[in-house]
């Protein structure tokens, strides 16, 4: 008898917890962020904002593919606005990624080489 009561109590408890899982918290209001309001103000950005939720996952996946450490991803994504995330989702592979300064000499050298090979100059000629 006592066992049956216990069983019933358990069933009741489990059912209530399941019910509560499906319940929303009572109207926790959410306001529109200022960055979002600004982005919506310009026509070109408004589409980008709509896709923001998708963008976050896209950018996360692409940055991970490009070798960004998984434990850094949350902090890095959290620092960006939705418009910035949407931009990166569209252009992460072409967006400027500043790295090195060393190639300035490279192009000068390349031009000299072309001029040399085409016979315009002969500064590399051996004596």
């Amino acid at each position: 008898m006592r066992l049956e009561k216990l069983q019933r109590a358990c069933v009741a408890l489990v059912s209530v917890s399941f019910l509560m899982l499906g319940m929303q918290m009572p109207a926790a209001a959410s306001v529109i962020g200022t960055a979002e309001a600004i982005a919506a103000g310009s026509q070109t950005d408004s589409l980008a904002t709509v896709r923001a939720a998708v963008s976050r996952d896209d950018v996360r996946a692409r940055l991970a593919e490009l070798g960004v450490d998984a434990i850094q991803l949350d902090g890095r994504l959290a620092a960006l606005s939705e418009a910035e995330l949407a931009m990166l989702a569209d252009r992460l592979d072409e967006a400027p990624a500043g790295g090195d300064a060393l190639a300035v000499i490279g192009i000068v050298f390349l031009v000299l080489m072309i001029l040399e090979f085409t016979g315009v100059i002969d500064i590399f000629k051996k004596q």
Partner: protein
Amino acid sequence: MIRAALPTAALLWSLAGCAASPPLAAGLPAGASRSIELGSTPFFAQEEYQCGPAALATLLRASGIAILPPELTPQVYVPGRRGSLQAELIGAARRHGRLPYVLAPDGGDLVAELSEGRPVLVLQNLRVTRWPRWHYAVLIGYDADRNVAILRSGTRERIEMRWQKFARTWHLGGRWAITTLKPGVVPEHADAARYIEAAAGLEAAGRRAEAQVAYDAAIARWPEAALAWLGRGNVAYGDGKLDAAAESYLRAVELAPGNAAARNNLAQVLADANCLAEARVQLARAATLAAGTALAAAVAESLAKIESLPPAATGCRFPGRAWTD
């Protein structure tokens, strides 16, 4: 032979679109110093591909943050791109409590920012559009008489670059330049929309304390800027200060009656304060204004939430208060 090469080189030069840029003295804004050098700006020699962390650390240090480039590398570097992205430099500056202000894309803003004593992080393209080589450097000064830009760049603590060459690399880099401001500092040359957008970035990144200081500074400078009031309201709302949020949103709506976000947010705070009838009035207006824009879904969600609320148990927190129509 070398004599024949000169016209050819000049031709190649002009074909590459390099001939037009004027010397610095010709474009120097009236009243600007002939030369500036922020010599006390720190320097960090970059490691391979690490000009982003090095340049950003230079700016953050100059604005009073104790940081070294290796701490920034995991926050901005993208190994697969062998570099750092502009948006992530901005994000990292926010994470260290600074307001990354994107300067207007003209040399005047660069000079103005240096005049106020702050170095400027610039993006350069050191090659050509089709075959770019992106590089971040820090502009610390210029000399109009000698026609040079003075930079902390890569592994070199101080380089002088002929002004036209600097201008060309900066132009090919999209004329992008940022400064990292202490929240509350508004540059003399600042543009309201640019500054408020930067503050909104801090808000989006969850840096509410810094965003609040920035919005307050923006309101002190531009009291009529509705978006700064919207931002101040959002920070107050996030901090659970309903009264302050309501006042700020109301001011935003008064200044910009057509702003759907301001009305939506005012409605939210009114609903939280049990002023459901007043909230519905604001939301109805917001729904009309937001129709067909990116905010339509957010406003619809607010409407659904308010309709699902049970009748208020207690009275409206702001009895008899008139909210703008």
